[in-house]
């Protein structure tokens, strides 16, 4: 019913003379806390499972999809062709092209957004975007010292050269290097960065705990109403995101000790309860042109209207590490001729409760909107009952690259259920980056 009007109401798609791209559906495996249920699963295992579940849901066996783009933030060097290798392990036609994308926690959004553009332009008719991450099966590298010794040894041609190379080895070089969530340029972890931002915006501990509580309750309620039956496929005996605590309370969340920003003393507000845990998981989203969807009798949940990336200078302290979406959203709104209030659903990735609340505070702040965003007036506040209504990362967990796919599929289904309206997605990422997007119901 909203089909004809909704595509006509899309300024970017109409004005740019490109065709609409629709979200057909999604599939992910349940997200699992790190070093638990999926400890033995590799990125390739999980991405393959997510893709195969998508193939089964939409009957894509033996089909050549236009392209599959996905990625992982933590990647083994052997996984240089992670997505293509995963596709070869699925029931898809092996002639389906695939490539890796990497943009930290915005990997999934960037993969999906870029594929959507290719469909809009007519370069592709169908595509699958997504992402995967494991912190359990993380790559561990040898130390820089040992690496240099080994490389020199490989280049050595004479016994003397070999001996010279080996003589540079020091016992301390045996210590392996595991990846961390620290920013290379500041040495601060993501949580420590956010703790500074959270404090700067004066976000209270209570507000953060309430957001976390809401996330758990919303996710649990969505499971209860079978919302995820066609969005998730069980994996390794895990049927639901196992970070979910349906019965958690404000008291329980309030009893947790601060985990980040401890040097803030009494002002430290960020706990393990209002921050996302390290998580393993994978997600995928099927995109297509209207023609592709119709020809294959596939549903059309939402139009993927537009997306925008932004980056901030967090290195010199000019902005908080995870505040880039606050800049991307007004640019996207301007391009689409929309206001922040023109949405029925807001999906703001809960890297930390503080991230969501700092971003919302910034949009309400006159000074920030004028001086940082260059706007005449604040973007204003949003109706909080429309925020993350089916839960978000605080409850579901956050396998970095897989989060974009989770959000796009969830929002597309929410919009389709409602039958009208728009949704806004905001995902922050390491390196001071962020990607935001607009979806429209079908």
């Amino acid at each position: 019913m909203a089909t004809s009007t909704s595509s006509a109401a899309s300024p970017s798609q109409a004005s740019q003379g490109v065709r609409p791209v629709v979200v057909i559906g999604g599939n992910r495996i349940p997200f699992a806390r790190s070093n638990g249920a999926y400890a033995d699963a590799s990125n390739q295992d999980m991405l393959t499972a997510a893709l195969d579940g998508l193939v089964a849901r939409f009957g894509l066996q033996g089909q050549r999809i236009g392209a599959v783009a996905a990625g992982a933030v933590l990647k083994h060097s052997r996984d240089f062709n992670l997505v293509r290798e995963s596709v070869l392990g699925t029931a898809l036609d092996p002639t389906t092209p695939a490539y890796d994308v990497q943009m930290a926690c915005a990997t999934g959004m960037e993969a999906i957004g870029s594929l959507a553009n290719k469909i809009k332009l007519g370069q592709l008719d169908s595509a699958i975007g997504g992402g995967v991450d494991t912190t359990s099966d993380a790559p561990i590298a040898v130390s820089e010292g040992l690496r240099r010794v080994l490389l020199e040894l490989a280049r050595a041609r004479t016994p003397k050269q070999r001996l010279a190379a080996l003589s540079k080895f020091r016992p301390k070089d045996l210590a392996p290097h595991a990846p961390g969530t620290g920013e290379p340029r500041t040495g601060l972890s993501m949580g420590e960065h956010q703790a500074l931002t959270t404090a700067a915006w004066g976000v209270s501990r209570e507000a953060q705990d309430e957001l976390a509580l809401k996330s758990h309750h919303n996710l649990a309620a969505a499971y209860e109403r079978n919302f995820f039956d066609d969005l998730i496929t069980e994996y390794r005996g895990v049927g639901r995101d196992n970070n979910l605590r349906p019965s958690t309370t404000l008291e329980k969340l309030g009893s947790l000790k601060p985990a980040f920003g401890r040097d803030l003393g009494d002002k430290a507000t960020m706990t393990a309860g209002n921050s996302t845990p390290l998580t393993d998981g994978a997600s995928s989203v099927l995109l297509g042109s209207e023609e592709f969807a119709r020809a294959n009798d596939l549903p059309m949940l939402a139009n993927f209207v537009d997306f925008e990336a932004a980056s901030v200078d967090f290195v010199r302290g000019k902005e908080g590490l995870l505040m880039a979406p606050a800049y991307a959203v007004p640019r996207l709104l301007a391009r689409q001729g929309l206001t922040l209030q023109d949405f029925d659903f807001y999906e703001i990735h809960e890297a930390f409760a503080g991230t969501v609340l700092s971003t919302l505070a910034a949009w309400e702040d006159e000074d920030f909107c004028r001086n940082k965003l260059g706007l005449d007036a604040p973007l204003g506040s949003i109706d909080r009952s429309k925020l993350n209504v089916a839960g978000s990362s605080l409850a579901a967990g956050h396998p970095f690259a897989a989060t974009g796919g989770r959000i796009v599929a969830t929002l597309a289904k929410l919009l389709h259920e409602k039958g009208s309206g728009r949704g806004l997605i905001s995902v922050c990422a390491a390196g001071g980056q962020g990607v935001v997007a607009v979806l429209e119901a079908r």
Partner: protein
Amino acid sequence: MTNQYQKLVNTGLTKKIAKQLGLPRPAVLRRHAAGAPLVPGPVVVLGDGASAQPTADLLLGWGLDVLRHLPPGRMVGAVVVAYDDVARPGDLADVALNLGPAVKSLVPGGRVVSISRPAGDGKDPELAAARQGVDGLMRSLGRELRGGATANGLLLAEGVDMGAPSAQAALRFLLSGRSAYVDGQFLEVSDGRGKLPEDWEKPLAGKVAVVTGAARGIGASIAATLARDGATVVAVDVPAAGSALARVANDVRGTALQLDVTRADAGHLIIEHATQRHGRLDIVVHNAGITRDKLLANMDEGRWKSVIAVNTESQLRMNQAFLAAGLPGLRVVSLASTSGIAGNRGQTNYAASKGGVMGMVRASSAAFADIDGGINAVAPGFIETEMTARVPVATRAVARMVMPSLMQGGLPVDVAEAISFLASDAAAGVNGETLRVCGQSLIGR
């Protein structure tokens, strides 16, 4: 385990030893294989019932070597006995005494199929005695046959002859490898409805079939068999079985629908998925089922109610939705169980649920006939699955080798073959029936 034993007692030196010791020697059953002959040898048609000549003509039309008398010194692949005109018990003798030598010439995996009329509750005791006599004769013959051969009967309701599509299709099913584990059973054709397939290898071509409980075991085999026979399969199972379900759906090139069949809107969601994604819904196989075994003395409310809810009540509710939607020609096949027929210690709840299914099927047949469809049940005996692998070893051995005439458990595909037949348009004249796939187990009828 059965396979190893089966191999040992059927090959080489160990075969000799097993023979001398009188150990049970379960034969390797003749199952359907693409391209294999329908019957492994000539077919002898005995008896002078009205069905004899049309049957012989029919078999000739299928390219079989058909004989009206037992050829001396030749092995035969099957014997068809036309008993449809017997009127008095004495009428059985001639053919029965000719049947004996024919049975001796039966090849391994051979078939004996009788064609007769249901005894019913008519007012002629002599007629009923004669007709019911065929029943006893064939069931006993089933117990005497060896080498994986089976004896089954085709019952033609009054007014139905061998011209009925379902009579022909049922006869073909019983002669073929598809009925490998069906033994000592009677299949009734109640009317002349039905449409024979253009291609007997693809009897479900163009059909859209929903299989519940499809993630593993018998359900996965049903999905594979229906797909082999030409259907597009929607594989349904609970979200908790998602990864196995996805594998099945991908193997059969169908779609996966994660759904708890006990949901109030399950039938609606199935119709929606099938029609939106595949344009139609022709076949539903109610296979989803659970066991929660306990002696009745120790039974709790949860065990009882969950089994009835999944195995019976969900089917009743979904059928209501299917009938309300008026899907033209919809064919439903439900999974019953021999436990529901003969009873099984520790399975009062399960047997109640499966007995319920058979009652439901019988009582729903008229409503499904009204939409030009039909509903039947298949009652498996001991089938080798993950579920039965958990049965204690001794019980399992008895269930496999002692109870059934075929001296072995069946395979999931044996159940699936019967379901595929009943789901086909050619079986439209079979309605409200329960067909056992049990290797002629000792228990029950």
